[in-house]
């Protein structure tokens, strides 16, 4: 969208001011995420840049909040940092427990959502699928229905059937929330899938199972993996359902953060936030690489 040669002065002014407006909006989008990173290294318990930090004085920076984060909940946080200290950290540190819970719940709910979601997407993308729109609407609805309604419904339902406070119940709930993302990404990938490959494979003597695993699955894997990542992030970031149906022991990272923010927000929260931002940068990179791979596989050059 280069500036055309016939542009009049007003258009030239608008052209550059438009760029400036866009730059400001990009700053609005990205700065809240970047600003917490340096702040998490603040030596003082404040949420703003101290004069020392602005002068890039090393005294203004410290890793005390990260240290705080690691030792929170440990039985002997001040002991020498040897093997037993690390064992204590692994066993008792509050955030470590939360991370373990988050990863366990996230992992299993991702598996459930991805397997069921991919199979369903295979059915939904077939041209002969009956009631396609209606079923699709039901399967996507966990993404649309406000989370508080889902949490309220699960709270009553789980206390009736005795699933509240169980890992099984939590995994099921998080899988439900992740399913729409798997369905959306996998059906989008299947839309570009050349169905004549299936007939070619059958023609060469492969059964339906062989065709699926040897022909279809390798081609749709990028979509499946990015759907799985979406499902994992959904579970990893979910706090309302955990608050409603989780037992006291089931502290996940977001729940621990939620408690931290509500009680007394300390810069330790910023340390967690920084770690999570780095985590999401990694995820974004993986998804982006997968998307490119998928476009290459489907023969769509990045036009």
């Amino acid at each position, binding site marked *: 969208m280069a500036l055309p040669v016939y542009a009049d002065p007003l*258009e030239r002014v*608008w052209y550059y001011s*438009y760029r400036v407006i*866009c730059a400001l*909006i*990009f700053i*609005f*989008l*990205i700065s*809240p*995420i970047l600003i*917490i990173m340096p702040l998490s290294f603040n030596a003082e318990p404040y*949420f703003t*840049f101290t004069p020392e930090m602005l002068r890039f004085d090393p005294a203004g920076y410290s890793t005390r909040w990260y240290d705080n984060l690691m030792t929170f909940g440990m039985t002997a946080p001040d002991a020498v940092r040897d093997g037993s200290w690390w064992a204590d950290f692994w066993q008792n540190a509050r955030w470590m427990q939360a991370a373990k819970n988050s990863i366990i719940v996230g992992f299993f709910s991702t598996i*459930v959502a991805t397997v*069921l979601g991919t*199979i*369903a997407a*295979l*059915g*939904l993308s077939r041209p002969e*699928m009956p009631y*396609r*729109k209606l079923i*699709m*609407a*039901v*399967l*996507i*609805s*966990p993404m*649309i*229905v*406000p989370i*508080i*309604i889902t949490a*309220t*419904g699960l*709270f*009553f*339902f*789980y206390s*009736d059937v005795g699933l509240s406070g169980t890992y099984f119940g939590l995994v*099921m709930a998080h899988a439900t929330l992740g*399913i729409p993302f798997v369905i959306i990404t996998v*059906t*989008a990938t299947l839309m570009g899938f050349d169905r004549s490959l299936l007939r070619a494979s059958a023609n060469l003597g492969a059964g339906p199972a062989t065709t699926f695993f040897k022909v279809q699955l390798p081609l749709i894997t990028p979509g499946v993996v*990015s759907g799985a990542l979406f499902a994992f992030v959904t579970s990893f970031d979910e706090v309302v359902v955990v608050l*409603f149906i989780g037992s006291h022991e089931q502290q996940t990272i*977001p729940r621990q953060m*939620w408690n931290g*923010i509500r009680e007394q*927000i300390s810069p330790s929260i*910023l340390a967690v*936030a920084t770690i999570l931002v780095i985590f999401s*940068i990694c995820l*974004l990179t993986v998804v*982006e690489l997968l*998307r490119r791979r998928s476009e290459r596989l489907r023969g769509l050059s*990045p036009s």
Partner: protein
Amino acid sequence: MANADMPADTMLRTADGQPLKSALAKASRKARIRAFLLVVPLLIFVLLTFVIPIGQMLSRSVNNDQFSESMINIGVWFDENPNAEPDEAAYAALAADLVYSAANRMIGNAGTRINYEVPGTRSLFTSSGRKAKNLKAPFKEALLELDEDWARPDLWAAMRSASGTTTFNFYQAAVDRKINADGQFERADENSRIYMTLFGRTFALSVVITGLCLLLGFPIAHLLATLPLRKASLLMILVLLPFWTSLLVRTTSWMVLLQGQGVINNVLVSLGIVTEDGRLEMMYNQTGTIIAMTHILLPFMILPLYSVMKTIPPSYARAARSLGATSWTTFRRIYLPQTVSGIGAGGILCFILAVGYYITPALVGGADGTLISNQIAFHMQNSLNWSLAAALATMLLASVLILYWAYDRLVGIDNMKLG
């Protein structure tokens, strides 16, 4: 030939002799069933973990057993004497119920249920329940001796409406109607119409947030769609990174930025724009909710807009210019109409997500920046008026489903894309 002995006709047949039409119908039915079977496991899963729990919650909004399950005799009396003033028989039934529910520790529940409609009566039930077993006939005098509030007509009206097994009272409460002395519903006083105010605020804030998202998202989407792909995909990262970042992280950052002693205020003070005492209050009010939610929902506006704008051929705009249109006319008459479907998709998506938002308003909203979701959570966790929470949730769900239907009509659910 296998069909040599069959009567020769003009009907097309398959190799094994079936009419081609029925064989095709059979094959396509089989294919349909096979496709459906692939979806069945997930459908059952979603029914079990999502549709049934929500349906059950909806039924709870009309559920009325808190009072009626322990107060049986008075329920019978209400059934037998519609529209009658409470007589001695009614008071006798009430006394028997009080004895029964006090003995079974259900008096608190029953009192709580009546308390929703006639505030301050829970203690009337519990204290009378403790003494009820010593009551003797005539019960009317005996109960009024205990507490003359028992003669209040609004109390009896509330008990009458609580004695059925189902009720719409919670919906009446959710639209700010309360029971009066004649047992009729009337609008609550001007300053206690909290729920309609809250619904109104939720929708108003959602409109503002969606509008802001459109205002900020449109230029960005347009820029991304028109830049060369290399630059666009670099800039796209700036949109996708917030999208992938944890919601709590983004909310926390806004709390850090917007605080009275936070980064934005400090910058403004050091630049001399505001004075030390005049620090802006941007958090724990509507401003905080609007800023943080606009930031959080912005990618949901940009992505659908971008995918529509990418398909608009630039030659149309050039054609308009060469025919003598000014750049503003070109934008208004040529470009904008082609982006309407993207605006619709992004707008409805943002609005749906904004209406049901919970976490961000709860953390940065303070008193006047909270939404209907926060009130539902309050009734679930603090006031424990679960039926009212369910009624509010049902109303919220209904409005979301209408929007979802509109989204489906406008965009089609299968066209929803992520990233």
